[in-house]
């Protein structure tokens, strides 16, 4: 008998794991965007005074973890695990960040869905009594992922209209339990891999939209909720194209997301910032949640939020071999406790 599982793929957290504090660090372009003032730190220079882009990303992730711990009022000793991931080979940024902490480390890869994945795992550990406080974090950097997945920075090319902009951003969340629960993680729905057969590596939004819909649908069925239950259902990085596809497909399934849906990749940049279809990357949903959304919750503008980070599980090898792009999405519900 499984105690905490409901429906098909959803887990229920009975002991009220909470978000105790968040930290977000973003790059120059993200700081110039519409959410610029909603992040803790905006870099003046994307190198962050480091010698390599990778080192800059590591410093960003490290900084956001420290910020979230500080805001949660926790020291390194009180943290039982850091769960984080990024886009680079062998989770370079996440592991090298953890090198500087005296805390056990769990590295995870979920492409751009990493933030929700780490928050779910963190909540499970805390809710199950396996850990007191857990840090869940994720990061991405335009310059590190561009050189790994696409072309060199100075290479002359034109980005197609469907292309998305990997966010230079990192976000971190401290999850723990207190006597006076406030911002509580209530349910989480684990997503399954859905591959609609897109082979064009620029069509990430289209590759991930069916996975996002699948997870949202499963979540609503499992929890027996309507979309309108939430103030906001926010997907990770579908971008403008993926958002349109998700809304259209959900309408066909009889789910009305129109009023409550938003996408982190859409709101991270202004349209005139030339990002084409919007933002992407682990840091996109991580920073928008840890920065903007968390502030909206604190300010009382949002009470019930469903965060659905979406990931395109492609690799440079699979793209070159012509295989299609599998999509994934995980969902976690964040609700303000009535008091």
């Amino acid at each position, binding site marked *: 008998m499984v105690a905490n599982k409901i429906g098909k793929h959803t887990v229920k957290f009975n002991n009220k794991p909470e978000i105790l504090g968040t930290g977000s660090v973003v790059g120059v372009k993200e700081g110039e965007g519409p959410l610029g003032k909603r992040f803790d730190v905006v870099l003046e220079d994307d190198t962050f005074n480091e*010698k*390599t882009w990778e080192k800059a990303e590591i410093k960003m992730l490290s900084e956001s973890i420290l910020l979230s711990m500080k805001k949660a009022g926790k020291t390194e000793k009180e943290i039982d695990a850091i769960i984080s991931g990024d886009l680079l080979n062998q989770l370079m940024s996440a592991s090298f960040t953890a090198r500087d902490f005296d805390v056990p480390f769990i590295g995870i890869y979920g492409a751009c869905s990493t933030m929700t994945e780490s928050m779910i795992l963190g909540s499970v550990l805390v809710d199950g009594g396996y850990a007191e406080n857990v840090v869940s974090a994720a990061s991405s950097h335009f310059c590190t992922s561009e*050189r790994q997945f696409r*072309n*060199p*920075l*100075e*290479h*002359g*090319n*034109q*980005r*197609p*209209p*469907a292309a998305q902009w990997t966010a230079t951003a990192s976000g971190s969340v401290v999850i723990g339990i207190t006597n006076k629960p406030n911002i509580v993680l209530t349910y989480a729905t684990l997503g399954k891999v859905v591959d*609609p*057969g*897109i*082979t064009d590596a620029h*069509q990430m939004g*289209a590759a991930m939209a*069916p996975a996002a819909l699948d997870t949202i649908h499963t979540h609503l069925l499992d929890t027996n909720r309507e979309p309108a239950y939430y103030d906001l259902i926010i997907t990770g990085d579908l971008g403008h*194209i993926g958002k*349109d*596809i998700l809304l*259209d497909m959900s309408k066909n399934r009889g789910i009305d997301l129109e009023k409550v849906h938003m996408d982190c990749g859409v709101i991270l940049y202004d349209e005139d910032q030339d990002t084409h279809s919007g933002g992407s990357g682990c840091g996109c949903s991580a920073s928008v949640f840890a920065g903007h959304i968390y502030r909206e919750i604190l300010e009382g503008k949002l009470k019930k939020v469903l965060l659905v980070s979406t990931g395109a599980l492609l690799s440079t090898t699979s793209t070159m071999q012509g295989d*299609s792009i599998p999509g994934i999405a995980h969902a976690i519900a964040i609700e303000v406790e009535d008091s």
Partner: protein
Amino acid sequence: MSKKKKQDEQVKKEQAKAYEKYVKQFTPNPKYFSNAIKAFFIGGLVCTAALYLQNLFMAQGMMKKDAATAVTVILVCSAQLLTGIGWFDSIARFAGAGVIVPITGFANSMVSPAMEFKKEGLVLGSGAKLFTLAGPVLVCGISVSVIIGIIHLIIDK
């Protein structure tokens, strides 16, 4: 069993195709016309400038072949310098094929990865990455030239 597997694959392929078609209606098209116009004018301008330089060198008493070579070298070096100071990617974003198709694009495709991977060392970083994008061009071009040479050798006899 294998027949069923094949059928499944066929169905999957058709679904993927249908989805791709469905996605297309949400994807804005590139600005075909204005992109082509930009490529035409910038590309034409590069070629005209090259001819002007070549004529200039020939007026100085250079042989035609040497003048053409000198122009190529100048185009290559200036494209690489523009890449170095970080202008080429902005120009290419505007002009597209207008600077990618001329020899300038080839020059850019060599420097840009070499710059990018400088931190990985001068031998296996820059040295090797100089050819990640340009290598295929050289390999295919030279191979075809050898084949053409051999064919002509046979035909001419």
